[in-house]
């Protein structure tokens, strides 16, 4: 199998999509040579994906204004990237407070978790209204 793989999917930003997407993503990653026999790593990638998609459904698109999410999964020889593009509301992740783990809350862990389990969390908004989130995991050779 080639070392480079790119998968592009466009779905509505609806919670009903999270399960079929996660099943697809997990099954895809498990078949990649770099991730064979690394259940813990696959679990973390699935977690990051789930957190990102959930946040887009909940926050980028408010209830009256649904929209599409373009998801690009790119696997190279030394990294895996999840890229999410939406046209919803943008935000500044640096202004999101880190959770206080000594005071358990009912929410607010998503971005923190993505940053814990992925190597890079990169977010930017473009002038045309597109928001782009990139989650990158480095792969050992």
């Amino acid at each position, binding site marked *: 199998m080639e070392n480079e793989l790119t998968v592009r999917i466009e779905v509505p930003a609806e919670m009903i999509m999270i399960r079929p997407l996660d099943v697809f993503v997990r099954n895809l990653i498990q078949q990649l040579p770099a991730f064979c026999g690394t259940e813990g790593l696959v679990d973390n990638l699935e977690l990051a994906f789930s957190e990102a998609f959930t946040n887009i459904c909940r926050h980028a698109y408010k209830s009256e204004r649904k929209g599409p999410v373009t998801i690009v999964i790119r696997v190279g020889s030394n990294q895996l990237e999840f890229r999410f593009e939406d046209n919803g509301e943008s935000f500044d992740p640096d202004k999101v407070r880190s959770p206080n783990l000594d005071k*358990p809350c009912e*929410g607010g862990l998503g971005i923190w978790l993505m940053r814990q389990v992925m190597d890079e969390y990169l977010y930017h908004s473009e002038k045309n209204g597109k928001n782009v989130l990139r989650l990158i995991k480095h792969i050992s050779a």
Partner: protein
Amino acid sequence: MEIQKRNDVTVIVMDDRFDAAVAQKLKDVVRNIAEQDRIKLVMDLAKTRFIDSSGCGALVASLRAVIKNNGDMKIASPSAQARSLFQLTRLNKVFEIYDDVEAALKSFSQNV
């Protein structure tokens, strides 16, 4: 999810995925159950292969709802993924976690 009654303990058996798609439903269910005083609740995660922060949040909310009316909640049979997430978020210090439902049920009688 499935709700069972084992003597005076309510056991909620969660499904394969414990995520945002079911988190609100669980919170609503527990809120109704927890209106009774001193409810005993076990969250059975034996079938739960995957849990995310929404699931964790629902568990925290459920524990709060139960404690508010002098009840108690325990977690049983978490997967390796769930244990790892609880440890990462330090929720393993918040929840009472048991290897299986029987151990969780037994702990209620030992707490008397």
